[in-house]
């Protein structure tokens, strides 16, 4: 019957719509930054034209987390920095695999508040590759960032958080950054 065929079509389309929500959500998050997801790298020359605004100071805080039972030590060189928008800065993070086996980790960055997400520009970051650490190995990892001078006036503090996930079981061999 015609009505029922159409309705089955609608049901199928809505199943597809459920899946279409995934890229739609990603797109919306990229544009608005509202899930704090800050996984884009920007080329250094793009931010070269920023004008440093020495009159304004913003506090940036660094937070490190371990997901579930990830047995690594992970901390920033300092908990916070006072920075001027438009000027690039470098900060190091230290990570240490204190177990007796090698583990592959993946860091996921998030930014709060979410209105600052797209204004925290990273030109160098360790968060784009799977990281292999042998037993007992430790490493220093730099992040180079600049705050876009367009950062809304009312934002005085920006928090950059990294969470390390254990991806040893799922990482594909060609994406591993083996130093």
């Amino acid at each position, binding site marked *: 019957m015609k009505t*029922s065929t159409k*309705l089955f079509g609608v049901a199928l389309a809505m199943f597809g*719509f459920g*899946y279409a929500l*995934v890229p739609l959500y990603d797109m919306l998050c990229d544009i608005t930054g509202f*899930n704090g997801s800050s996984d884009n790298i920007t080329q250094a020359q793009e931010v070269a034209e920023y004008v440093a605004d020495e009159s304004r100071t913003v506090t940036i805080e660094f937070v490190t987390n371990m997901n579930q039972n990830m047995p690594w030590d992970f901390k920033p060189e300092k908990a916070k920095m006072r920075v001027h928008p438009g000027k690039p800065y470098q900060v190091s993070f230290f990570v240490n695999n204190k177990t007796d086996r090698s583990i592959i980790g993946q860091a*996921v960055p998030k930014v709060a508040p979410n*209105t600052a997400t797209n204004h925290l520009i990273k030109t160098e970051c360790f968060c784009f590759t799977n990281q292999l650490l042998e037993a007992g190995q430790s490493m220093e990892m730099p992040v180079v960032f600049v705050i876009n001078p367009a950062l809304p006036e009312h934002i005085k503090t920006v928090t950059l958080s990294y969470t390390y996930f254990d991806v040893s079981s799922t990482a594909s061999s060609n994406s591993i950054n083996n130093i």
Partner: protein
Amino acid sequence: MSTTTADEHHDDHHPSGIMRWITTTNHKDIGTLYLWFSFIMFFIGGFMALIIRSELFQPGMQFVDPQFFNSMTTMHAIIMIFGVVMPAFTGLANWLIPLMIGGTDMALPRMNNWSFWILPFAFAMMLSTLFMDGGGPAGGWTLYPPLSLQTGDALPFVIFSIHFMGMSSIMGAINVVATILNMRAPGMTLMRMPLFVWTWLITAYLLIAVMPVLAGGVTMLLTDKFFDTSFFNAAGGGDPVLFQHIFWFFGHPEVYILILPSFGVISSIIPTFARKPLFGYSSMVYATASIAFLSFIVWAHHMFTVGMPLAGELFFMFATMLIAVPTGVKVFNWICTMWRGAMTFETPMLFAIAFIILFTIGGFSGLMLAITPADFQYHDTYFVVAHFHYVLVPGSIFAIIAAVYYWLPKWTGHMYSEFWGKTHFWLSTIFVNITFFPMHFVGLAGMPRRIPDYALQFSDYNQMATIGAFGFGFAQLIFLGLVIATIRGGAKATDRVWEGAQGLEWTLSSPPPYHSFTTPPNVDNEWNWFTRTVNDEAIKTRS
């Protein structure tokens, strides 16, 4: 009449015994199956609720371990939503829609059989997970990852049974739409349909639109767990919050799926016992449609605390509050229908009036929850539990019970016992309030939901709630006994059953013939614009 009598016996031919029920394509048989299935699941889900309430009778751990407690809250919700309220409404739709629109049967009778018989298998699979390694699902019925992905062996079984439930309700909904659009008697225009048919038509569209989205969401959980996809896995670039958006895009329309048919039931019962036509028929139709539309743009009010831009929180707050407008229209219309009516208070009417009062209380606590800044305090507390139980138990469940009392004499040909009906009503109404009203207080005081233990100061109200829950549970045994007794015998019901009953179903005998309206009634010639119904004596003598 005399010319059709000889044929009727022939038409009534169907297999007897168990095969009648397994192979049936008759809308009345399938309606009965759905209603009995729902009734059985009601007692299973209710038993789980009593385990929860027993554990919460005192602070500290008494009877069950926390993992099992959590799987009880999860299973109780899944069973009550997908196994009780939805099948009960589908059962009512099967029984009543063809009778109300003067159709012969549902439009797709074989699919109808299939959509029912999927359900017992789906729920057998769901219940079997309680006996698996790692226990049943215990992360809440909302299945939020990453917690739900830590479920043991049960996870794929839970997901597949949700797929089956979804298929069953999508097929049921397609059948309802196809029936309403194609099987109406001549002259039964859309704006002449009883409101139960209207609310079901809109509910069916909601089902077709959102059940596939849930199916997609749980499929993503499945592939995340077993096929290394990263829809909700942050390490792989996914976002667990995305699941909450997908889930509530389904979940909010779902809560209207659970209540809109109740509005239809109440809109049938109130005019009968107030002996007045329904006040504001067309505004009722538009209000139902508005609620259905709004249900698609309010989902994120379930996740105010998850982190959203201010503009988003404001939008979802105001959109949610907007729903109070069409819902208020409905409540005012029911009250205006009763206003200066010649009211009598038979059991269905008592349940309908209790529905209006108690559902409105649930609506008000919903408005409180809609206020974003206040919701940060209420989120995931017993206040939320009180809210949704007020709209679901004295809301949907009371409407289903009212519907059963109202149409049971039509279905069985026997009157039920008013004494036991009223006893059941008063016990249910008193105990439902003893159960759920104190939950508002412990919730506002900060007791979180889904925990087996609580701080000492919440003890008194929890003890009240547990006593109420057992009282309510045992009161439902009266209902069970009454339904069985009415099926087996009792005073003969007249065709009209209720003095003020209006509509095509009352033109049939009680019980109606196995195949009804084989000659469609002509509604056009016998439409009474004042009572907004057919002149049923004329329809009867003609057919």
